[in-house]
């Protein structure tokens, strides 16, 4: 029986050999490719429509002005990949700025000490929320929403007014511009953001932690049965997000040179949006940190387009952002679908 079966099998299995050959294009990366391509197309359109749009500094400004969003979004990517959500990021940023400003301006701390404290506080705060979520099986949405209230509340408690910072070290770093040739420059924050993205990519794709995050997002019960450290990883994910938020808070402090409880209002939604636009599934388990960077750039590009347009009233601005988002996401879906069909993957 076996011999017979064997011959039947080999006869039928010409196709089964095929997957072993490396394909030219891995459909896994399709969404990412489409997103990048659309970004390029959109930038090109802007270049045609508006004079000076494609100048390198405008493109660099995308990074400079969105550095903090980028950093927060890297942390958020991990949270979303693990199937959770973190609404506290904007508030943690605000809290960090106020804390830094208060410590440096009012208490006379050295900025580096203050930054170290802020980063560790952010991490601990995230971990605490993660612990609540993991230990008591609370829904991440509520926990981090309460975390958002708490962090903003704490920020206003420290100071209702905004606090300007004029510590020489802080201002020096804030004004620092790193030349990238041709008279164009990047800020330190932008550099930190790029580093964060690079670190995020490595963390997500080349470490056990990263792969466990994906596994949890794909199926928590399976991850448990596979013997993965689900509890520790989940807490670490929120701690990471807390750290990223605090880091973004530091960057915002440099960006604005002030601490203010109303900084980064509604940033959590932007962060979630860029992660999702970058191709990460909100339900967890799928997506790329690199996609998040593209998502950030797309959102920045939309705003830049509108700023260059310069004739829109307040309401048309909103409508235009909506329409551009819609266009982008629709095209993303359409291209993905048709490419998928021609590639023959289900």
């Amino acid at each position, binding site marked *: 029986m076996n011999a017979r079966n064997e011959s039947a099998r080999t006869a039928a299995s010409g196709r089964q050999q095929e997957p072993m050959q490396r394909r030219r294009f891995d459909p896994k990366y399709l969404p990412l490719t489409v997103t990048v391509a659309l970004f390029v197309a959109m930038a090109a359109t802007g270049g045609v429509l508006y004079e000076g749009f494609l100048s390198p500094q405008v493109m660099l400004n995308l990074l400079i002005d969105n550095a903090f969003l980028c950093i927060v979004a890297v942390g958020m990517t991990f949270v979303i990949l693990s199937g959770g959500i973190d609404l506290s990021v904007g508030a943690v940023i605000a809290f960090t700025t106020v804390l830094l400003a208060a410590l440096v301006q009012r208490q006379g701390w050295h900025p580096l000490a203050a930054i170290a404290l802020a980063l560790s506080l952010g991490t601990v705060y995230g971990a605490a929320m993660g612990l609540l979520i993991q230990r008591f099986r609370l829904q991440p949405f509520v926990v981090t929403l309460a975390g958002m209230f708490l962090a903003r509340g704490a920020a206003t408690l420290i100071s209702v007014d905004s606090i300007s910072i004029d510590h020489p070290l802080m201002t020096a770093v804030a004004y620092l511009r790193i030349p990238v040739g041709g008279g164009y420059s990047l800020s330190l924050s932008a550099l930190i953001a790029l580093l964060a993205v690079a670190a995020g990519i490595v963390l997500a794709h080349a470490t056990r932690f990263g792969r*466990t995050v994906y596994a949890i997002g794909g199926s928590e019960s399976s991850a*448990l049965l596979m013997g993965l450290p689900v509890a520790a990883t989940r807490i670490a994910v929120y701690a990471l997000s807390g750290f990223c938020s605090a880091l973004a808070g530091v960057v915002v402090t440099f960006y604005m040179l002030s601490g203010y409880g109303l900084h980064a209002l509604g940033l959590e939604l932007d962060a979630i949006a860029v992660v999702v636009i970058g191709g990460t599934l909100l339900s967890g*388990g799928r997506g790329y940190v690199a996609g998040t960077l593209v998502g950030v750039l797309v959102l920045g590009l939309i705003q830049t387009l509108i700023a260059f347009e310069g004739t829109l009233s307040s309401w048309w601005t909103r409508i235009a952002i909506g329409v551009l988002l819609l266009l982008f996401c629709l095209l993303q879906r359409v291209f993905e679908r048709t490419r998928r069909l021609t590639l023959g993957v289900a």
Partner: protein
Amino acid sequence: MNAGPSPPGSSHVLQARGIGKRFAGIAALEGVDLCLRAGEVHALMGQNGAGKSTLIKVLTGVLAADSGTLELQGQPIAPASPVQAQRLGISTVYQEVNLCPNLSVAENLFAGRFPRQRWSGLIDWRSVRRQSRELLEELNLRIDPDRLLGEYPVAVQQMVAIARALGVSARVLILDEPTSSLDEHEVEELFAVIRRLRERGMAILFVTHFLDQVYAVSDRITVLRNGRCVGEYAAADLPHAALIAAMVGREMAAAPAARPAAEADVPRQMVLQAQGLGRRGQLAPTDLELRGGEVLGLGGLLGSGRTELARLLFGLDRAETGTLRIGGQAVRLHGPADAVAHGLALCPEERKTEGIVAELSVRENIVLALQARRGWRRFLSRAAQNDIARRFVDALGIKTASIETPVALLSGGNQQKVVLARWLATEPKLLMLDEPTRGIDIAAKQEIMNEILRLARTGMAVLFVSAEMEELLRVSDRIAVMRDRRKAGELPGGCGEDAVFELIAGQ
């Protein structure tokens, strides 16, 4: 450790004594003993819901037992989680595929124990890839380790799960129904590996509902019935009939229900006619005819396109070519809702993802398709729902505390019966069953076969997909054979196994 089957009593590796486990009023296990020995394959047998999976979950720390003790090589252990069990050297494949569909095959094989580069501590993807190839090779599984696991059908996923368990160098290997989705060839590959491991002195626990498989590999058999231990036997000393009797608790006619002689006098109405039905990358254009009152068996190897054909007929995938006529009328199906409205039914292959709705009760799962067919306005009264649910719970012997129990809490085989019941309840014109007996015990299987034949006798057309050749030959009036995603030919029901294999092989 020495090679070869060891004499009884030697080197107890894992010993469970007096295990008890209750779930909200139901006793799933009561005073169960189990003893795994080095270099032995131990089969755990029992009907659906007998407590096999529960026992395994207790052994591996997924569930905490209410009573009883565990010993690993004489040392008492109490694994509190699967991680701990793994660290103790117990490697497990659970009944439902418990891997992550969103990770690649290689990652699923190595998650939790990725090889790392020495200098950076990062995952060494090259060696992950290399080692996965080796592991898959061992099971003769030719799949791309870089593709996402979810892209492969359950059968392949099950093989991957097995490969993962094999990859851990463990003392104890536990396999809960590893062969339910596999065809004979894959089973052979698996058994070859199991024998090799046995030789290396590993203790293996093996659950299956296929008696031949039990006798093919196991040295010893423990039978559970209703959560109690019926006994432990040496496989060689236990005849087939005695094993069945031990599981079922009564003598059972071993003779399978025979296909009724073709009732040629009954005029058979054409129910469904497919011409050139196909879809790029899934199925070459295929013709198929189904008449009322007949059972059409669909044979072929794994991945030969049987599932695809059924899905196209049901409108679950959109056909790109060809026409479909139902009851003589040309139709275009826009989705399952359409198909259901036309009186078709498809009991899908993948029970976990496409079958059960875990949170819903047994009752709700059973009436779901029927209700969908009636539409949202013609709501089945609660009494009618209860009636239908009870009827099928009795008819198929679904073991459940009540019809209001969430389906998630049922044993695997009983979940499968619920999905089957859902489709039987719609009383369709054409019933398509894709591997409907997966994970179902022998007694229930016979009942299901009888039910199918009974339905066919009432004039229903049945399309029956199964990896089990005997089963297929037993119920089918005709057998269509798929090969390489096209129909290779059709055979009359009475033909022998050989004829079918020849067609499968394309000779």
